[in-house]
């Protein structure tokens, strides 16, 4: 297990180098002049030229790349062109906001997705099975922005049960500690504000959870059905184990591998792909941070931000792989 982990970690190095080259290349090939952006729409051409020099944009590309990597190795993600603050400082709260949202929606997605899948498989071809698979189909096809707007219309505007946007009531001021508001309010021990934060989380988390929940439900169902037909399950039943035990312990464990893969992939996707949900619910997360940076040509933020998100994606996948090996000791990739 240890050797496997180390080997997987070493394999990360070429992946990370490749990613840094790709993000760097993509950003530098986009049309548009960052120097012009910084100088503002009304700057003189001389000033634009000066800024180009300051940023090293007059250097050859390979040299710019090497400087960038040198910075990265020292933990320097560069400075935002617009705010002039170090990106490593700036990006934290946005990452935390997205992580809080994504983790909550993954909890919802996994809990409901897995259970729906299991029960559908258990009661295959029952009305429950049909209904939940139709719901799952709708869940996959529904556009998130539409669902988000409908949620706002119903639960915020019409019923007035939940707030329509943001992370907490703007009238409350909180000095954030971890920038995970649920954790922060717990640390402060203020249950009233905690409740407010949770209420703000519900609508966006549900909107974001729909697609992964539907995918997880379908995968769980098919994977469960396959395992249920195997011999050892028949043996377990023959031994007289309760049906619940057979399904949730014996079957689920072997059916879990493909489900885990999907969960890992979805988790990674949501981290960078929650832009729509973040926009509709004005959630100040990493997706919107990058989106704004792209539209403002803040290219240092774009390249480092994408790199950070991509790195997290890779790390999550690594974690999923490690969990495979842990769940199923037969899996030891690449070992002869």
């Amino acid at each position, binding site marked *: *297990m240890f050797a496997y982990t180390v080997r997987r970690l070493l394999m990360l190095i070429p992946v990370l180098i490749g990613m840094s080259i790709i993000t760097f290349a993509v950003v530098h090939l986009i*049309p*548009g*002049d960052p120097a*012009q*952006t*910084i*100088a*503002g*729409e*009304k*700057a*003189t*051409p001389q*000033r634009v030229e000066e800024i180009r020099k300051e940023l090293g944009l007059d250097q050859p590309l390979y040299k710019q790349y090497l400087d960038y990597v040198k910075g990265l190795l020292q933990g320097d993600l560069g400075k935002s062109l*617009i*705010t*002039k603050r170090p990106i490593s400082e*700036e990006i934290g*709260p*946005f990452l935390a906001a997205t992580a809080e949202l994504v983790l909550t929606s993954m909890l919802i997605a996994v809990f409901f997705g897995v259970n729906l899948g299991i029960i559908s498989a258990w009661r295959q071809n029952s009305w429950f099975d049909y209904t939940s698979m139709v719901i799952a189909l709708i869940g996959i096809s529904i556009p998130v*922005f539409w669902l*988000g*707007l409908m949620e*706002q*219309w119903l639960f*915020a*505007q019409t019923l*007035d049960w939940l*707030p*329509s*946007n*943001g*992370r907490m*009531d*703007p*009238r*409350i*001021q*909180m*000095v954030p*500690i*971890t920038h995970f508001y649920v*954790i922060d*309010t717990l*640390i*402060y021990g*203020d249950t009233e*504000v905690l409740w407010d934060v949770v209420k703000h989380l519900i609508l966006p988390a549900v909107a974001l959870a729909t697609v992964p929940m539907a995918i997880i439900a379908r995968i769980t169902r098919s994977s469960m059905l396959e395992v249920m037909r195997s011999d050892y399950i028949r043996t377990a039943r023959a031994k007289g184990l309760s049906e619940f035990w057979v399904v949730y312990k014996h079957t689920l464990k072997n059916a879990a591998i493909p489900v885990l893969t999907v969960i890992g992939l979805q988790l990674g996707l949501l981290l960078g792909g929650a832009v729509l949900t973040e*926009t*509709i*619910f*004005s959630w*100040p997360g990493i997706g*919107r*941070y990058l989106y*704004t940076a792209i*539209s403002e*040509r803040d290219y240092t933020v774009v390249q480092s931000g994408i790199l950070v998100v991509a790195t997290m994606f890779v790390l999550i996948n690594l974690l999923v792989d490690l969990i495979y090996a*842990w769940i199923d000791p037969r899996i030891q990739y690449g070992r002869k």
Partner: protein
Amino acid sequence: MRKKPFWTLALAMVFLLSMVLVACNSGGGGIKKDTGTTLIYGRGADAKKLDPIQVTDGESLKVTGMIYDTLVQYKDENTEIQPGLAEKWESSPDGKVWTFHLRKNVKFHDGTPFNADAVVFNFERWMDKNHPQHKGGEFTYYPDMFGGYKGDKDHVIKAVTKVDDYTVKFELNRPIGPFLANLAMPPFAIGSPTAIKKDPEKFNENPVGTGPFKFKEWKKNDTITLEKNPDYWDKGYPKVDKLIFKSIPDNAARFTALKSGDIDIMDGMNPSDVAQVQQDKKLQLFKQQGMNVAYLSFNMKKKPLDNPKVRQAINYAVDKKRIISNFYAGLAEPAVNPYPSFMLGYNKDVKDYEFNLDKAKQLLKEAGFEKGLKLKLYAPQDPRPYLPNGKKVAEFLKEDFKKIGIDVEIVTFEWKTYQEKVKSGEHELALYGWNGDNGDPDNFLYVLLDKNNAREKDASNISYYTSEEVHKLLVEAQSSIDQNKRVELYKKAQEIIKQDAPWVPLVHATVPIAGKAEIKGFFPHPTSTYKLHKVSVEKKN
């Protein structure tokens, strides 16, 4: 059994982490809940910086306008000038020396006094590139409005000096007509010298001014919270205890937030939502006169657009009324002149080219294009305040132009790229526009139509209109401080421009703003910098 350490370790880590965090927090400020009245202003994007001289975007200036004051300010309902931090002022007859008498007993939010030294310090910081506090970013608006920095050839301000503690003297190299209008612009707001000296780089995150509200908290991409300044010099204001700017990027979601009571007032409405606001008794609609213009530019460097008959012909082929009803939901005024009618020197006697395809055809025939011609029409992909749907407008124009024998090919780019292309004169026809800065006609006519601004690259006169006659009028008006004389000069310039037709002026877009019915005292100022300290709202529970 091998499995256990994995979970134990993870749990131990989480526990340890939270212990560390609790420990870190021992001295923290914690959570503060609201008391008193709050006004929550919803908008589409966050501010970039809160040092007003370093920004050009409206979202930043909306906030800084509430934290700082300027020497003079715009009247509540138009762009005329009234006292701000300066109570009164006078100028020498030649307009080259201005003396400002400052308001007494005004304090910055950090408790330091506002006086002549503070004014001199701020202007020195802006104009002198070698000033120790000329830091933190670009000072874009300064060189833009005052002809450059200290030492530059065209720099307007020769010196700013203290006469006594409450009197400041400005000596100018040459008189400029819009001098006071420039000083009223929110970028030229006076910040606390003490705070700026402490850290000029971070001043933009810890703004200190003399304005109606003090800066409290900034959650990036989310909210900016300001608190009432109880010592504000304009007694009786602000009306609310707390002012919160909240960014909600999606227009529809922002409107839902207004209807569900999460925010009190919002800008950036979808035109299609306007009717809903008018019908809803819980809401009210404010219509802001647009200090802007959208136009179709002819690149006069390119054939056949150097021919005035072709340009006039196209002017006759644009149906502004239908453009307004189709693409602005009726919220726009057809543009006759390059700037809107509420500004100084607007010429009401100028007649617009009416929509008349026969006349258009006739003119094209006279110009020798009976058989028609082909033109490329550039249109921006992204919405602009004065042009919410450039591409659709382009398609609309294409249809009508086809009827007079002009075959149009539409070319679109994303906004930043579009600007670069158009400003270097790549286009033949281009849809473009302008948001005014200071409410002075110079800021429209000189910037958009003077030959000095028809630069090879980075032109703001993208039609490359180089009329000597107009140039003379504009330069004379720019350097005169006699407003009556300026009115005459601008009226004349508008006549010539109409005749030469370097553009088809399309519309001045009205900006719709929606608020709760309980809101009182809001005026949608054409500069988009609103005096929110004059707004009151019934207390929310």
